[in-house]
C-alpha cells in the first residue's frame, strides 16, 4: 500500500522518504483505532521500504506530536470490568503496540521523528523508536505516567535508558516533569532544534541527506548503534500490568478523565 489515509494516520512516499502523519484530534491520543492503523502501517512497511531510504513521523495537529495513550479509552474500557479481565485486555494492547514499536525501531530505513508541542507519554515513546529526533523549539517531552500510578508502557524506559544517562531517566520518570528542547538537546535526546513550524522541513532535508549513502551500510550501522532491548521491553509490559491491577490506577485515571480544571497536564 503506497499511500494510505486513515482516521488517525496517513502515509505517502515523497522523494524516497515515507512520511507518516499523525492526525487524530485533539492531540494524537493513541487508542485502539490508532493502534489498528499503526499495525496496518507496520504490515505495509516491508513493501514501502523497497522504494524508500527514510521514514519521517510527524503530526499535523496544532497541539503537538502526541499526548500519548488514550487515557479516556483506557478508563472507559476497563471501568467496572473484573480486574483480571481488564489486565488481560491491557496486556494484549501493550503486546500489540510493542509489536508496532519494535517494527519501527528495527525498520531498514533511517527513521526521523519531527516533533512539536506536546510530546508526552506514548507520543514520546513513539519518537524514541526513531533514529533521530528533530524538535520544534516549542516541543516539550514528558513521561507523566507515575501520576497515574503507572510506568510508561509503550517501551519508554528501556528505550530512554538506551539513549540517555540513568540519572536523567530517573529525573524524568520520578518527577513527571516536562523538558523543553534546550534540555532535551543538552541531555542527548534531540539532535536538531528547528524554529517554530520548521521541524518537518528539517526532517525532509535530513532524509534527503541520508539518502545519499549506501543503504546496506546505513542499515549495518543502525543495527550496530541501536540494539533493541527486547528482554527489558517484555519486562516493562509485565511491570505495567502488575501496577495496572492496583486500585490507585483506576482512581488516577478517573481523576485525569474527570478533571475539568485548567491544569490537567501539569504534574
Amino acid at each position: 500500500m503506497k499511500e494510505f489515509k486513515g482516521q488517525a494516520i496517513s502515509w505517502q512516499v515523497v522523494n524516497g522518504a515515507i512520511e507518516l502523519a499523525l492526525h487524530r484530534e485533539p492531540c494524537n491520543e493513541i487508542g485502539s483505532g490508532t493502534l489498528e492503523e499503526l499495525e496496518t502501517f507496520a504490515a505495509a512497511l516491508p513493501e514501502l521500504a523497497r522504494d524508500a531510504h527514510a521514514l519521517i513521523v510527524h503530526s499535523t495537529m496544532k497541539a503537538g506530536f502526541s499526548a500519548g495513550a488514550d487515557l479516556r479509552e483506557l478508563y472507559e474500557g476497563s471501568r467496572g470490568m473484573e480486574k483480571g479481565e481488564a489486565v488481560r485486555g491491557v496486556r494484549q494492547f501493550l503486546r500489540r503496540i510493542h509489536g508496532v514499536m519494535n517494527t519501527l525501531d528495527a525498520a531498514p530505513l533511517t527513521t526521523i521523528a519531527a516533533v512539536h508541542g506536546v510530546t508526552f507519554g506514548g507520543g514520546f515513546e513513539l519518537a524514541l523508536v526513531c533514529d533521530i529526533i528533530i524538535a520544534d523549539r516549542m516541543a516539550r517531552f514528558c513521561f507523566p505516567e507515575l501520576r497515574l500510578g503507572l510506568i510508561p508502557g509503550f517501551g519508554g524506559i528501556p528505550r530512554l535508558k538506551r539513549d540517555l544517562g540513568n540519572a536523567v531517566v530517573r529525573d524524568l520518570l520520578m518527577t513527571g516533569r516536562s523538558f523543553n528542547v534546550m534540555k532535551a538537546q543538552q541531555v542527548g535526546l534531540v539532535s536538531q532544534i528547528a524554529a517554530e513550524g520548521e521541524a518537518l522541513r528539517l526532517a525532509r532535508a535530513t532524509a534527503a541527506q541520508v539518502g545519499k549513502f549506501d543503504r546496506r551500510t546505513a542499515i549495518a550501522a543502525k543495527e550496530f548503534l541501536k540494539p533493541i532491548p527486547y528482554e527489558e521491553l517484555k519486562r516493562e509490559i509485565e511491570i505495567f500490568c502488575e501496577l495496572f491491577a492496583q486500585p490507585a490506577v483506576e482512581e488516577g485515571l478517573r481523576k485525569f478523565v474527570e478533571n475539568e480544571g485548567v491544569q490537567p497536564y501539569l504534574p
Partner: protein
Amino acid sequence: MPTTDNTLDEILSLAAVHFKVPREKLTPDGDFFKALGIDSLQALDLLTRLEHHFRIELPDYELQGVTDFRTLAQRIQARL
C-alpha cells in the same frame, strides 16, 4: 540582576504579545488562565516561551496551583 518587578513586567509583556491581549488588561495579581483565555496545554506553551526568554529551566510542578502573574514571576526570579 533584574528585580522581581522587572521580571513581572517582562512576563506581562511577553504574554500580552503572544496571546494577543492588550497589555493594560493584564494585572500582576490577575488569574493568567482567565486573563489570557488559556487552557493547560497553552499554559505549557507559555511556560516554554518563558523558559526560552529567561534562559532558565522551570519544572512545571513549580507551576502547580500558580494562577497569578506575580507568583509566576517569583518562581522565575528564584531561578535567575
